[in-house]
Each structure stands twice: as structure tokens, then as C-alpha cells.
């Protein structure tokens, strides 16, 4: 495998809820070390797409390849092994409420990867350090701020050594003053060469870190390309109107 082969490739993913088409034959691929950002209006299907990629929501049709291997989601073992390699960050963190920050990070290592507890804790501590939370290791989610919770959840995903990470609006549930600390952690991930697919409304941030921006609406990819192109010279009129609207809401970010 060369560097130019995609690590993650999805082909013609479709999903309906009832008769409502949420995703219409979506295809995309990500190469190692790339960061791609999904943008689009609320209801576009960004969350559904991310959840279909690791089969938290079962797509109706379509294929997902990791490292060139097509994933058979009906084989439980294969599915669980695949999910270990795909980190997922949720909008509302979803830390395990009954576990401390450290235990949140180590539990996957202990229960899924079957690593010895002492080793797992050591590794978990390293990951907490990486997101700047080593002093909070023994706090429970209820004792952490939103920004801290999201950083723990990033540490939890990183501890599993994922090949690719899916981030679903990681800063949308945060108070404005806490957004920065989480974006910093994500920026460090980008710099360390992590492969990521992220849905976000932080256009400014996306412009800074993305290799490619994908604009989605009504369950289809309308347009995709380098940030400069999508944000400043969109070909599609809907992309244009979305970007200018986002600009209004989030201030003078693109000027």
C-alpha cells in the first residue's frame, strides 16, 4: 500500500428513515494524514453520515473500506475490530458518567483490547497528558467542564490508536470561551498527522486545518475541494449562500 491509497473509503452510502432519504449515495475517501471537513446546514445528514461510517447507524446500502478492506458489518468480530480502529468524537461528549476521566480513557484498553490494567492506566495517563488533563484524571464527568469533557473524549479515542477519527461537531455544545481549548487539541492532532473527518460549523478553523472541505445538503455532497475554493470561490450557488450565512452567524471569520 502506498501513501496515496485511501485509508478510509466509502462508496455509495444511502440511508432512509421511513420514506425520507437522509443520505443519497454518498462516496468519499480520505488518505493517511488528511483532514477533511464536512459542512452543511442542519439536517444535511452530516451526523448520520459519520454514524453510518462506523455503523452506529446501519446504512441501507453502500460499502466502507478501511485500508482497502471492505468491512462486513454483519460479522460481529469484524465490526468490533473495525470500530476499534475508527475513533469517534460526539457533539455531546458521551463520556461514561460512572467512570473517572482516567477510567474513561482506560476502559476501552482494558475491556476491548484486553490490556493489563496497570499498562492501560499508564497509557491512559499519557493520553490525558496529551490533552492537558493529567491533574483531572480522577475527576468524574460531572466534575468537568464541557471543554474538559470533550478533551477526555478525544483522549479516550486516541488511546485506542485509531487509524482515522470521525468528529461530529466537537465544539458545538461548548460555551464560546471553551471552544478554543478543544480546537487546540484538534489542531495538534492535525499536526501530528492524524487522519480525520470532521463535521463542524467552525468555518474559520476548517479553513485553517482542512485539506478539503465537503459541502453537504439534503443528503448529498454538493461540492468539495480545497478550503480556499469552497469558501471563497464556490461554484455552486447553494454552497455560496451557506457560506455567507455561516459568515453572518459566526462573525467576520472569513474576511
Amino acid at each position, binding site marked *: 500500500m502506498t501513501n496515496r491509497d485511501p485509508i478510509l473509503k466509502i462508496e455509495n452510502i444511502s440511508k432512509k428513515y421511513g420514506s425520507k432519504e437522509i443520505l443519497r449515495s454518498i462516496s468519499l475517501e480520505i488518505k493517511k494524514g488528511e483532514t477533511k471537513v464536512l459542512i452543511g446546514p442542519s439536517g444535511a445528514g452530516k451526523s448520520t453520515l459519520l*454514524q453510518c461510517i*462506523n455503523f*452506529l447507524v446501519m446504512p441501507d446500502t453502500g460499502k466502507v473500506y478501511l485500508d482497502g478492506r471492505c468491512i462486513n458489518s454483519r460479522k*460481529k468480530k469484524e465490526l*468490533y*475490530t*473495525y*470500530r*476499534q480502529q*475508527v*475513533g*469517534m468524537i*460526539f457533539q*455531546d461528549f*458521551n*463520556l*461514561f*458518567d*460512572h467512570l473517572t476521566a482516567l477510567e474513561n480513557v482506560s*476502559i*476501552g484498553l482494558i*475491556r*476491548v483490547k484486553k490490556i493489563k490494567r496497570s499498562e492501560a492506566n499508564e497509557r491512559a495517563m499519557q493520553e490525558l497528558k496529551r490533552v492537558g488533563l493529567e491533574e483531572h484524571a480522577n*475527576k*468524574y*464527568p*460531572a*466534575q468537568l467542564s464541557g471543554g474538559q469533557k470533550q478533551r477526555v*473524549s478525544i483522549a*479516550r*479515542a486516541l488511546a*485506542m490508536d485509531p487509524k482515522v477519527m470521525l468528529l461530529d461537531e466537537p465544539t458545538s455544545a461548548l460555551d464560546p470561551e471553551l471552544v478554543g481549548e478543544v480546537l487546540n487539541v484538534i489542531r495538534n492532532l492535525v499536526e501530528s498527522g492524524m487522519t480525520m473527518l470532521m463535521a463542524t460549523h467552525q468555518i474559520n478553523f476548517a479553513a485553517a486545518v482542512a485539506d478539503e472541505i465537503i459541502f453537504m445538503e439534503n443528503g448529498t455532497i454538493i461540492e468539495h475541494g480545497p478550503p480556499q475554493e469552497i469558501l471563497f470561490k464556490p461554484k455552486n450557488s447553494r454552497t455560496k449562500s451557506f457560506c455567507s450565512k455561516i459568515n453572518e452567524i459566526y462573525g467576520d471569520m472569513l474576511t
Partner: protein
Amino acid sequence: MNEWIYIQNAVVPALWKGLVVSIELIVPSAIMGLLLGIVVGTLRVYGSVFLRLLSDGYVVLFRGVPLLVQLFTWYFGLPHIGIFLSPFSASVLGFTLCSAAYHSEYVRGALLSIKRGQIMAAQSLGFSTLDTLRYIVLPQAIRRALPGCGNEIIYLIKYSSLAYMITCIELTGQAKALASQSFKYLEIFLIVGFIYLVLVSIASWLLNKLENALVIPGFELYKS
């Protein structure tokens, strides 16, 4: 004075014997009832359609039929299909099955209160369905169900007195026998009432200690 000697020589030994039997009834029924209740409650939420129907049916039946009728069925009814249970076994069986039905109700409510995001997060780490349940969902649900389940155990202590109706002579049974010999109903049943009160108090204290031991930040709300 006569009275005191009677209490010392007859009442205390008999009630002591009864108390031992009561405790022998209560402890296994409480433990097995709780465990079965957790299983049934879990099936009611996460089981296949068939298992859900089955477990729901079980709860309807065992909560709906008076416990005494259940005990009579196990003790007097089962021999008709060739199954003979001792009074003690029939009592433990009856208490366990009845108690589990109530426990499952609390467990079910607690399971339903666990946010879907907790499960999605576990699955995204590669947890199997069973491990998600074991390591993520149940530890949280049990904390939330504990006050209700504790209550059920308190009830169990009191309804264990029904065992004497199927000739398992526990505390109440002994008291009944003593009282009908001596006609000292008031004294004897006051003593027995007091003993149940002590049992319930000890159980409450233990349950409270357990709840405190399990309390973690974010779950204090569920402390009774």
C-alpha cells in the same frame, strides 16, 4: 414473674429458632430475587421481541397474583404434576420469583434512563453488545435502581412471614404457635413486631451503606 419465666423458657428459644429460619428464607430470596430481577429487567429492555414478551408476561403474572396464592401453588399445586418441594424450598422459590418481578421493574426504569449516547460511545470503541451492557450500562443502571430495589428487599423481609402459611415455621409461625398455646397474643406479637422492626432497620442501614459506597459525582441524585 411467672410471665418473665415463660418468656425466658418458652418464648425466647422458639422465637430464636423462628428468627433463624426467617433469615435463612430472606437472605437467599433477596440475593436470588435481585439477580433474577436484573436479568429479567435487562431482557425487558434489551431482549429480542420474544424474550421481551416472555419477561413482560412473567412480571404481569407475578406482580398481579397475590403472593399467598403463588406460595400455595408452589407448595400444594406442584405435587399434582409430580414436583414435591419442601415448605422451605417452596417459600424461597415463591419469594424469589415474586421479588424478582418487582426488582425488574426498578431495573427496567433505570436502564431506560441511560442515555443512548453512552451506548454509542461504547460501541464506537469496539465494545460488544454484551460488554456494553456489563461495563457501561448496568453499573450506571444499578446505581439508579438501588433505592427502589432496597425498598423491595425491605418488603421481602416483611412478606417472608407468609411462609408459615405453607408450614415453613419461621418467626411469625413460631409466634402463632406460642400464642395459641398461651393466649398471650399481645405480648408475643409485640415482641415479634419489634424483631421485624429491628431486621428492617438493619437492612436499611446496610442498604444505605451500600448506596453511599456506590455514590459517585453525578449520581448523588439517586441517593434516597
